[in-house]
């Protein structure tokens, strides 16, 4: 029986913004044929967006802290460093899983895949085409096949003549990228050499891949091209529209390079499509996108991996083949979903320990998905690393030099470097990426632990400090965050505006929104158009229930970046809080339209529908959230409530189980403006033998801090007094019986005067307005919660 095959083509940093324009002009017909006859979607990347980490996540289905590939370089175990290699990977890759099941794989150029593995099939590593020794390019006659770059060895004879050396690249081949190449002084200007090198690399990968496709048996073929990313880093600044600071001459010379690179990749894809039959599933993917418009940064930070600032958060995915939908879009895909999806194409089980999910929406018919606990439990390895007979130091030096040239790592030969410190720096750098990987997965404790270990105040690194402050805020270690902030401020390690932004997060965590507001205002004075600061400001104003101000802030973002999904979500939140649900829905849909994989937007859309009593769309929205994340347990509570309303017993049972899994039980809360009535009510409860926590300190509300971790759990009495303005800080894990002691704002003002020993009957208009606002906000919040029983007293 004829078996279905799967071909995966990886284009590092390919971005739909460019592809769509070229497809519309008929310039990328091959990818268009996949899009027209298959499905397309955005592929969300993960942080940090560094290619070796990302492509390993794509090939394993797990995050970097699980797969072990943590950057561009790694210690070589002999006191030096080498380019990141297959040695670092701690888990099985897709080609190992396929080998175990008896499928043949041909893998070409995957980053990292050197040294190669003894898989069931063939492997050509990412270092196969290196043409330098250290900084020097070797002559064609002296160009050796690197040790450990080809498996099985018999292939060397077959592929050795397929490598293209940059010196072989002729004017004919350069001209489509730079039509006026002859006008350049090539002795002075090395940019044509860059094009020659990238073109030679891409051509070598492609020639080798097509050779294996046509002469070696295979079930799975994966080809990875890094050239598109390197072309983009070198030439995107010249891509139209002309950026500020780029001269007319440079713009006119190099404006076609990125377009040329995309078209050439499409030509290579076209050839591959001609070499497969209709029973082959073809998948084109990229690990992240690349900013090509007004979002291009004007400055690339001079730090390791600084160029990654040019990466956009969404790559591409396009799939066609037997049983795959035609002409449709898929949503919510992430790079972590690639391996589970390939496994599903082969009807192989998916490891429950994989973070990604199979993209079942690609299939025309419902696909049955099988699971196993873990591929790591299989005794067979599916391919061992073929350890080279000799350590090829030249090869390592060459690959390291390429990374230095690209700006991804520091130069060991720079005047300030010595070998020991360099190694230490590399280990720290990788640990920083490890911490970022943990933080991205919401594992802030683990991230902070690493950051505290690598942070060195004698050699401060602002990236580590920023991440440490963010993680300290997330784990509610505000003192630590403040300590770092003071250090950063004292040593002027960052632009003052950015320090203000960080401090505003701490102040917000400490529940001091007014301080946070002042800091963001000051940051905006320095950076009036900074989208991130405007987002923080809008969110803060939403928290402070200043909907008008929040909307203004988000609208400023939309003016600058009409595609910013977070701004639309923010405006939706402002309307939701005001109870204007129709407007809220419209903005949440706008946000989702721009970014489908946005669980919070779906969640709030669900809330808006539920509050409008539109139960079916509400359920649909919450169920979408459920597929995207398990970090919003309140969604299960909503679904339980909604299924109770529409009386679906089966679902009620299902969600009741989930709610009870997450629920920490019911708490009794006493709230209300601080007045004598509240004081009296609490005294009555206490005299009846019940206990009330929070009363002594919170009623007078001087030091109360709801932002402390687990503050509610610490208050273990039968009742807890929570000041009215802190009600929205109650978490979604408990359900609450709220005793709302109602009284007038005048009584609350008098009580406040009494506590603060201010003369009775004096009127403080701003206090009155504030108390009024507290009542409005609390009522609005209570009305929007699914987990509250309210008793008004």
């Amino acid at each position, binding site marked *: 029986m004829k078996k279905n095959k799967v071909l995966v083509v990886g284009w590092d940093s390919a971005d739909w913004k460019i592809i769509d324009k070229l497809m519309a002009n008929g310039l990328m017909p091959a990818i268009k044929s996949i899009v027209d006859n298959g499905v397309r979607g955005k592929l969300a990347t993960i942080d940090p967006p560094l290619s070796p980490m990302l492509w390993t996540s794509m090939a394993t289905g797990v995050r970097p802290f699980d797969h072990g590939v943590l950057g561009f370089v790694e210690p070589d175990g002999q006191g030096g460093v080498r380019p990141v290699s297959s040695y670092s990977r701690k888990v099985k890759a897709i080609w190992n899983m396929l080998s175990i099941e008896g499928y043949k794989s041909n893998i070409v150029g995957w980053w990292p895949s050197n040294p190669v593995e003894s898989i069931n099939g063939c492997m050509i590593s990412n270092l196969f085409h290196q043409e330098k020794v250290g900084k020097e390019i070797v002559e064609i006659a002296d160009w050796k096949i690197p040790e450990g770059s080809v498996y099985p060895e018999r292939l060397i004879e077959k592929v050795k*003549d*397929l490598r*293209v050396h940059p010196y*072989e690249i*002729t*004017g*004919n*081949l350069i001209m*489509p990228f730079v039509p006026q190449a002859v006008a350049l002084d090539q002795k002075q200007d090395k940019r044509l050499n860059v094009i020659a090198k990238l*073109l030679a690399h891409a*051509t070598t990968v*492609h*020639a*080798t*891949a*097509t*050779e294996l496709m*046509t002469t070696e048996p295979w079930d799975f073929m994966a080809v990875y091209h890094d050239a598109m990313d390197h072309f983009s880093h070198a030439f995107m600044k010249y891509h139209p529209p002309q950026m500020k600071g780029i001269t007319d001459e440079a713009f006119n010379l190099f404006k076609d390079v990125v377009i040329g690179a995309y078209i*050439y990749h499409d*030509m*290579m894809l*076209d*050839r*591959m499509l001609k*070499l497969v039959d209709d029973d082959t599933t073809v998948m084109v993917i990229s690990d992240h996108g690349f900013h090509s418009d007004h979002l291009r940064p004007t400055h690339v930070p001079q730090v390791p991996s600084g160029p990654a600032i040019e990466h956009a958060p969404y790559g591409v995915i396009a799939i066609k083949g037997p049983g795959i939908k035609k002409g449709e879009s898929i949503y919510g895909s992430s790079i972590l979903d690639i391996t589970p999806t390939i496994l599903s194409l082969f009807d192989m089980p998916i490891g429950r320990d994989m973070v990604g999910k199979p993209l079942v929406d690609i299939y025309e018919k419902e696909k049955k998905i099988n699971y196993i606990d873990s591929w790591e439990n299989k005794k067979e390895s599916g391919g061992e690393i073929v350890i080279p007979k000799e350590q090829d130091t030249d090869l390592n030096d060459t690959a390291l030099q390429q990374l230095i040239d690209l700006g991804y790592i520091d130069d060991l030969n720079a005047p300030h470097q010595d070998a020991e410190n360099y190694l230490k720096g590399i280990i720290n750098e990788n640990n920083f990426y490890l911490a970022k990987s943990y933080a991205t997965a919401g594992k802030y404790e683990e991230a902070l632990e690493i950051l505290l270990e690598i942070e060195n105040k004698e050699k401060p690194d602002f990236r580590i400090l920023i991440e440490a402050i963010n993680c300290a805020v997330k784990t509610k270690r505000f003192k630590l965050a403040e300590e770092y902030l003071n250090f950063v401020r004292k040593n002027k390690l960052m632009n003052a505006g950015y320090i203000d932004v960080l401090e505003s997060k701490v102040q917000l965590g400490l529940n001091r929104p007014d301080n946070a507001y002042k800091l963001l205002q000051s940051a905006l004075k320095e950076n009036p158009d900074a989208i991130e600061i405007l987002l923080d400001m809008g969110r803060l104003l939403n928290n402070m229930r200043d909907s008008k101000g929040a909307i203004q802030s988000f609208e400023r973002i939309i003016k600058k970046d009409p595609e910013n999904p977070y701004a639309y979500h923010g405006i939706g939140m402002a309307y939701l809080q005001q109870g204007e649900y129709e407007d809220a829905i419209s903005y949440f849909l706008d946000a989702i339209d721009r970014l489908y994989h946005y669980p919070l937007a779906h969640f709030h859309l669900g809330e808006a529908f539920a509050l409008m009593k539109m139960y079916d769309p509400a359920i649909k929205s919450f169920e979408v959230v459920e597929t995207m994340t398990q970090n919003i347990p309140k969604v299960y509570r909503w679904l339980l409530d909604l299924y109770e309303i529409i009386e679906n017993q089966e679902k009620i049972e299902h969600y009741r189980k989930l709610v009870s899994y997450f629920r920490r039980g019911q708490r009794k809360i006493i709230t209300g403006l601080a007045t004598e009535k509240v004081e009296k009510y609490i005294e009555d409860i206490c005299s009846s033998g019940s206990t009330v926590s929070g009363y002594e300190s919170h009623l007078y509300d001087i030091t109360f801090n709801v932002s402390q971790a687990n503050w509610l759990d610490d208050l273990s009495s039968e009742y807890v007094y929570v000041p009215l303005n802190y009600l929205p800080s109650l978490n979604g894990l408990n359900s609450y019986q709220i005793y709302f002691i109602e009284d007038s704002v005048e009584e609350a003002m008098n009580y406040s005067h009494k506590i603060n020993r201010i003369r009775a009957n004096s009127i403080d208009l701003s206090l009155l307005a504030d108390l009024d606002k507290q009542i409005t906000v609390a009522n609005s919040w209570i009305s929007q919660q699914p987990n509250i029983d309210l008793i008004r007293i």
Partner: protein
Amino acid sequence: MGGQKNVIRNQKGDEYIVPPGGSLGLLALGSVGVRAWKKAKKEWEDSQNQQVEKK
């Protein structure tokens, strides 16, 4: 170029002359294109060398 022309055939059987300077279309053909180009380039270089020697 040398006496025998370097040609590459498509699926219909049409023949194309392989330019020694190469072309992106040729390289995009993969292994077939790269081999044909390298052959044409080598023959052209050899013929150039022969001409120099004759002079």
